[in-house]
C-alpha cells in the first residue's frame, strides 16, 4: 500500500527540480557584468534611507493569528464533513455547537474592532 505514495515522492522530487532546470540554463546563457550602481538597492533612483527591517504593525499579526485559529477549526471540521452522511442528527448537533463557537469568536473579534485594518 505504501508503494502508492511512491508517486507523491517521485512527483515531489520532480517538482523541486523543475525550477532548477531553467535557472541552470539561464546561468549558462546570460551575461554577467556587475556594476556597483546596478547592485544597489532599488528605491526609485534615490539613495536608500534607513534600515529595511522596519517594525510592522500589529494588525498583520492579529490577522495571522485569527487565520491560524480558523485554519485549525476547519481542519477539525473536514473529517466531520467526510463522515457526515453517516453521523445522524447527533453528529450534526455536535458540529453545530462547534460551528457556533467559531462564529462567536468571529463576532467577538468583529465587535471588538480587531478586524479593522487601519
Amino acid at each position, binding site marked *: 500500500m505504501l508503494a502508492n505514495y511512491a508517486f507523491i515522492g517521485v512527483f515531489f522530487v520532480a517538482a523541486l527540480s523543475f525550477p532548477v532546470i531553467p535557472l541552470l540554463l539561464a546561468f549558462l546563457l*546570460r551575461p554577467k557584468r556587475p556594476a556597483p550602481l546596478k547592485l544597489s538597492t532599488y528605491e526609485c533612483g534615490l539613495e536608500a534611507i534607513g534600515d529595511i527591517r522596519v517594525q510592522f504593525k500589529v494588525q498583520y499579526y492579529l490577522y495571522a493569528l485569527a487565520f491560524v485559529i480558523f485554519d485549525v477549526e476547519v481542519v477539525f471540521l473536514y473529517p466531520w464533513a*467526510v463522515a457526515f452522511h453517516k453521523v445522524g442528527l447527533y453528529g450534526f448537533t455536535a458540529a*453545530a455547537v462547534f460551528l457556533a463557537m467559531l462564529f462567536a469568536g468571529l463576532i467577538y473579534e468583529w465587535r471588538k474592532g480587531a478586524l479593522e485594518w*487601519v
Partner: protein
Amino acid sequence: MHDVINHLINTVFGLGWPGWAISLIAYLLIATILFMIVPFQMLFLTYFERRAIARMQDRVGPNRVGPEGIFQPVADGVKMFTKEDIVPDAADKWVHLIGPGIVVAPTMFMFAVLPWGPGMVPFDMNIGLLFFFAISSVSAVGLMASGWASNNKFALLGAMRAVAQMVSYEIPAVLSLLAIVLVTGSLSIVDLITFQSGLFISSSDVPGIPDFGLGWFVFTPVGFLAFIAFFIAALAEGERTPFDIPEADSEIVAGYMTEYSGMKFGLFYLAQYVLNFLLCAITAIIFFGGWQGPGVGWLYAQAITPANPAGNGLFNVLAGVLGVFYFLAKTYFFFFVMVWVRGAYARLRIDQLMDFGWKLLIPLTLVNVVSAAIWVGLTKWGAADGLAFVEGWAPLMRWAVAFVITLVMNLVAYFFLVRVYSQSQDERARLDDEVLERLTNVA
C-alpha cells in the same frame, strides 16, 4: 492511468523488468509529460491575457512576433533566459535564490492530484482536495522569503501584503469547499467529479436522472454560493486585479518581485500564471463538473475500465479527448472571466480587501456550511439518522424541498449579511470622519 502506462511499457520494452522499475519509469513519464504541458499552458495564457485585455482597452496588443503576435511569449521566454541576473549587494544571496523556487515548486506539485479527463488523473488521492490546498499555502513562505531576502522596502512591504491577503482568503476558500465536501462526503477530487453526473440534478441525489454530465454543483443553491465565494477567494489567492495589492505597481513598484530580474523573475511570472491556471481548473472541477459534459459518461462506459475490462480501447481515447476538451474549455472560460474582471474593476484598498474577506465572505460561507448540512439531511438521511419524516417522500420531492429551503436560507443570509456589512462600512466612514474632525479642531 498508471496501469495503462505500465501496460504500454510492458508491451513495448518486453516483460522481463521488475515491477518497481516499470512503476518508476511510469511515474517519471507522467511527471515529464505534465511538466512539458504546463509551461505551454503558461505561454498560451500570457498571450491570451495580453490580447484579451488589449481588446477591452481598445488597443491591439502584441502583434509583431509571428502572425497576430502568437510567438510573443516565446520571445519573452528567450529574453528571460538571456537577461542578466542582478542580485543586490544588500540582499541575502541564498534566500534570494531559493525564494522563487519555493514559490514555483508547490504550484507544480499541485498537479499531482489534478484530473484532466475520465480516468486521466496522475494520482487519485483519498484526500486530494485537502492536499491541493495544503500545498498551495506553501507558496506564501516563498513569497515571504524572497521579499525579506531582497532587502528592499518595497519588496518586504509587497511580501507582507501578499501573505496577509493569501491567509485572509484561504479561510473562505476552504470553508466554501467544506460545504461541497459535506454534500459529496469525500475528499477525493475524482469522486467529486463523478458525483456531478446527471441533468441539472446530480444523479446521486435523485437516482434515475438521465446522465448528460450536467449535474454540476453550481446548479444548487449551496453550490452556487460556494462558487461565488470560492471564485472571489481564488482571485485574491492568485493576486488578480482587483486584489493585486501585493504588486500594485503604482504604489510599491512590483512588490516582492522588485529586486528580481532574468530567470528568477521569470519563475515568479510562471508561478503566477500556473497558479491562475490551477485555480481556474479547480473551480471548473469542483463547481462545473471538470471533464463532465454531454457524451463523456456514455463514451467512458464503453471504454476499458476496472468495471468493464472487456471494453473497447478506442472509446478510452474518445472519452479522454472529449473530457479534456470540456475541462480545458471550462478552465479557459474562467481564465477569461479573470481577465474580464481585470478589465472592469479598479484595485481595492487593503482595508476594503480585509473587510470583504473577513466580514462578508467568511460569515457567508459559514452559513453555507449549515445549508449544505441541511441539504444532505433532506436528500440523504433516513429514519436511522433521526429524520424519519423524509422517508416517505419521493427522491425528487426530497430534492425539491432541499432546494427551496437552502435557497431561502442562503438568500436571507446573503441579504442580511450584505446589510450588516454595508452598515459596518458606513460606521467605518463615520469613524474616519471623526478622526478628521479631531485633527481639524486641533489644528
